[in-house]
């Protein structure tokens, strides 16, 4: 889901851009240092490949079809750092050439799809990508990648005060889940075809040895995704409850002062308040990603 300009409030898009910019910088430096010397043309052409692959339709339900998003596939083939760079390049072209997704919102879209989408897509593969569980890990990666990106986008929209009635929210989550399952299956089928064509293209996963680390990491990713999904759905449940109890016309407040649900009440009202609440939320999300990135890099160099 590419968020256009005009939907996100300043604290949300600016905060996410502040998180994305340094992380993409780290990924670019890491990808550039990767061993193969043909990295530059490879990453460029693989970005074009993502566009081409998205033209191939897969039937989802009567009348609708889905396509590959690609974050998990790129992570399993090029490695996470290069996949982040390629997906960022794809999003930049979509925004600058096709007006698909905004320019101010680019930081948010990169955060959702290039950073979290790739990391969530790679994590299961990294943890269980060796041996018998590989296929399951690949499919799970595809699923998590799309699910995490989409729920994040929805959460950011809600943080910006976009009204989404509960029924619509659950419907959206259902559609995301369908797409996420499809992504998992497509990623797995493509990885299997690549196995036959050229096994060397699928990266060997250099997972941590300890089962405890694996379990904790896996559980925290699952919890994060489920938590996000519930968090983006639940506040509306609360809204409705409040309405039914006749406490207030919450939706009006939500529009007037975005983030009212998240406001710190002791701050003076207005912009500053919104900014503080938004930044706090975003920093938390950023800290989580930074922690994962740190963990990944420590593993690498160890």
């Amino acid at each position, binding site marked *: 889901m590419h*968020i256009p300009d005009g939907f996100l409030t300043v604290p949300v898009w600016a905060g996410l851009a502040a998180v994305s910019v340094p992380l993409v910088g780290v990924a670019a430096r890491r990808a550039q240092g990767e061993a193969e010397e043909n990295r530059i043309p490879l990453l460029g*052409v693989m970005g074009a490949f993502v566009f081409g692959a998205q033209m191939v339709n897969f039937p989802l339900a009567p009348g609708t079809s889905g396509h590959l998003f690609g974050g998990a596939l790129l992570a399993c083939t090029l490695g996470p750092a290069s996949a982040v760079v390629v997906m960022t390049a794809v999003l930049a072209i979509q925004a600058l050439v096709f007006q698909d997704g*905004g320019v*101010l919102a680019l930081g948010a879209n990169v955060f959702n799809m290039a950073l979290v989408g790739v990391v969530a897509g790679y994590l299961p593969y990294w943890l269980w990508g060796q041996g018998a569980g590989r296929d399951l890990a690949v499919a799970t990666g595809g699923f998590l990648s799309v699910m995490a990106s989409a729920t994040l986008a929805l959460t950011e929209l809600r943080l910006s005060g976009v*009204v989404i009635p509960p029924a619509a929210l659950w419907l959206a989550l259902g559609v995301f889940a369908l797409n996420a399952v499809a992504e998992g299956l497509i990623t797995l089928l493509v990885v299997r075809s*690549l196995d036959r064509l050229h096994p060397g*293209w699928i990266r060997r996963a250099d997972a941590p040895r300890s089962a405890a680390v694996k379990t904790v990491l896996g559980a925290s990713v699952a919890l994060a995704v489920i938590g996000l999904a519930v968090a983006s759905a639940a506040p509306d449940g609360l809204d409705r409850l409040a309405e039914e109890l006749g406490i207030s016309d919450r*939706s009006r407040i939500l529009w007037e002062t975005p983030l009212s649900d998240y406001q710190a009440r002791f701050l003076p009202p207005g912009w500053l308040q919104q900014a503080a609440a938004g930044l706090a939320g975003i920093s938390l999300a950023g800290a989580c990603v930074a922690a994962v990135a740190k963990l990944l890099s420590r593993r690498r160099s160890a």
Partner: protein
Amino acid sequence: MRHLVLEDWSRKESWLHARDPRAKLMAAVALLLAIGTSPAGSPSRLAGYALLLLAGVIIADLPVRGVWLRACVVLPFAGVFGVLAWLAGEPGRAAAVGVKSYLSAWTLVLLAATTPLPALLRGLASFGVPRFLLIVIQLLYRYLFVIAEQAHHMRLAAASRGGGFRLRSRQGWRAGAGAVATLFARSHARAEAIHRAMLARGYRGEFPLASPPRFGLGDALLSLWASAAAAALRLA
């Protein structure tokens, strides 16, 4: 392909086309900021932005209706959330968000229609975007059409064999995945060939990225004037 129109526009010659990509980037960001932070319920302010953009389109000698149509790409997204807000009993707000995202898309169309992508990338380079990323974007853009065409031919071939990838069956999914894998393999081979062609011309890991020309008086005027107009409208 629909984006080719935009590329043709971006190679026209006008005062706006001739401006430095950095100036146009600054002007566009100023406008986007003003539009994005405008509170809902101020139709005259939104009309002001629209007039500003219209002036840009006319200075750039672009077809007005064509630009309007291009900016409609945001309408599906804005429409969904507009309807939701409407259902929630906020028709005014729904319209405001729709108009704001439409005006933002219009700004982006104007930027893309007056600045070829390579020039835009040069501008971004001088704003500190990592060169490595910009070179990847530049190569992506170079091979976008080539590989999309390849995918298109594969789709045609599959369709003419009677199924296409829309087959509502397990075979359909297999065939689709096979097509994606084939496209992956061809892209890999192409990257290899491009790398060889680069090496053959003395490439040693330093990829040239041309630097933008001198930032002139006209460029300074454009960025100042656009930012001032946007700020004046926003704060009025």
